């Protein structure tokens, strides 16, 4: 370990260095858990537009990006956010108003697409989806796809099982690989070289990271490489895949980070309430997004009392008996 720290930078720097208008991006986490919110808010504040976003069920972050008008195209399996929004509100609005182009897949299909990208193969096979209109209705037309070298020409393909009935399958559905330009993930621990240790569920973060050309990691704790080396089997992301490491405590707020803090139901409900009304939403964004300089300022605005209320209990990893109404 040479402790090369050239990857360590602020999230502002990482976003400005690796993002660009029109970039194809993905974010880690799942609905209200471990979304890289510091990165998401910084992308919004720096004003990146016309993004092409790949998501499985990354509710909170994706809806904020859509709400801020950053996203042109979205490939997604699920746009909901648990009990706070059965369907993400700004997502719904954008789709219904025709300002967002959407391509629908399932959660497994999206995860397999990241896996294909991570493994360096053009597609992954699955037995999911036969008979579903996911296979027959395309959100992005063939023409639109053919015109963009960053998109596969086909949404997906169905073929007869080339091995006959091997594997008890008559047909297979093939989903094309995704290789985002940039992926943002938030983890509990990262070292200065970029190796990451995730506690709790990994969702599809590892595949998203390995599929990406550039990877920006934000972390609750930034440690020295030696600190993660005694138990290497606990490190799901080796530094080889990581471009930038940003130390951002509470960097997933208002989503949860297992063993660190819970989601903030108050914030998520306030967001949902505001999101339903265009003018209220502008006010909400003015206050929490554009009215703060960075994630630290947002946390100050939220206040220590609320952060204390969502602090994870040492035994369970979440905030026991937290008011979640």
């Amino acid at each position, binding site marked *: 370990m040479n402790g090369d720290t050239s990857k360590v930078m602020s999230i502002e720097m990482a976003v400005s260095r690796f993002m660009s208008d029109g970039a194809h991006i993905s974010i880690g*986490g*799942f*609905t*209200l*858990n*471990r979304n890289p919110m510091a990165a998401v808010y910084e992308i919004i504040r720096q004003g990146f537009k016309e993004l092409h976003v790949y998501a499985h*069920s990354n509710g909170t972050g994706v809806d904020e990006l859509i709400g801020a008008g950053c996203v042109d195209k979205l490939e*997604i*399996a*699920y*746009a909901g*956010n*648990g*009990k706070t929004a059965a*369907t*993400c509100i700004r997502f*719904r609005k954008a*789709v*219904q108003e025709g300002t967002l182009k959407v391509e*629908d897949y*399932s*959660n*497994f*299909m999206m*995860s*397999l697409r990241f896996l294909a990208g991570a493994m360096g193969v053009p597609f992954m096979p*699955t*037995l*999911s*989806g*036969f*008979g*579903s*209109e*996911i296979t027959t*209705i395309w*959100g992005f037309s063939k023409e639109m796809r053919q015109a963009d070298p960053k998109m596969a020409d086909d949404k997906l393909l*169905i073929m007869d099982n080339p091995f006959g009935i091997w594997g*008890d*399958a*008559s*047909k*297979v559905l093939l989903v094309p690989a995704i290789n985002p330009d940039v992926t943002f993930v938030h983890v509990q621990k990262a070292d200065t070289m970029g190796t990451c240790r995730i506690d*709790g*569920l*990994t*969702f*599809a*973060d*590892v*595949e998203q990271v390995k599929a990406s050309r550039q990877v920006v990691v934000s972390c609750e704790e930034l440690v020295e490489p030696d600190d993660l080396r005694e138990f290497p089997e606990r490190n799901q992301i080796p530094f080889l895949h990581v471009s930038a490491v940003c130390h951002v405590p509470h960097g997933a707020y208002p989503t*949860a980070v*297992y063993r660190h803090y819970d989601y903030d*139901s108050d914030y998520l409900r306030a967001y949902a309430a505001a999101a339903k009304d265009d003018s209220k939403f502008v006010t909400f964004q003015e206050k929490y997004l554009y009215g703060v300089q960075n994630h630290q300022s947002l946390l100050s605005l939220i206040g220590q009392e609320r952060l204390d209320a969502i602090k994870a209990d040492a035994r*369970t*990893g*979440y905030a*026991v*008996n937290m008011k*979640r109404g």
Partner: protein
Amino acid sequence: MQTQDYSLKEMMAIMAAREIKDGDIVFAGTGISMLAATAAKNINAPNCVIFFETGAIDSIIEELPLAVADPRVMYWSASNTGLLEAFATMQNRITGDRVIAILGAAQIDKYGNLNTTAIGDYHLPETRFSGSGGGCDVASFVPRCIAFMQHEKRKFVEKLDYLTSPGQLQGSGSREAAGLRPGGVNVVITNMAVMRMDSASGEMYLDQYYPGVTPETILDNMQFSVNISQAKQARPPTETELKTLRQKCDPQRLILG
């Protein structure tokens, strides 16, 4: 019959819990489906294994999760992995054939196909929903799927606006013809009834109607007609079932309201 001492949500949760057999691997989603899974675990199927598409297996649900990614599903589980592992567990027949799943939807048709994507034109929908999530995968892989529905005409439709998750498709043999294994939705649990799919025709029929509800009322709340000739009245929740549900499964009344 009018003086029932349980809510319809409680009835639904218990009816679903009764579908779960001891030893089953239960795929649970958010909301009432999690409650039903937890109820089964606490009442009639202590060795059933609750698992989530996010990758948590056999979680200890001390507090009801509000999403499948809630940190409450991660606590004291047998293994915390990710989405790929969870769905592979269902796609793989060795484990997948032991799974029972609970799904929800905006629309269902008489073959148990589900729409969780959009009402109206897909490209410019009147109402957009969350989309498949894991629903399409589960309905493709799992031999026994329960759909939770509100019994309303606009939800039990003649034709889905979008077929997100495959049930019995167009009935007899069409799942296999499309490339699917047997499975998909074969039980529908509503606020009025339990419906099942005929194993030969793939069509929905009325199996049980709740106390205080008539088969005719049920038909009045659907766009399509179903066979009611085998229908019998459902057995209401027992005191023990209700007590466990209320005191052990959702003491905060997050789902029961």
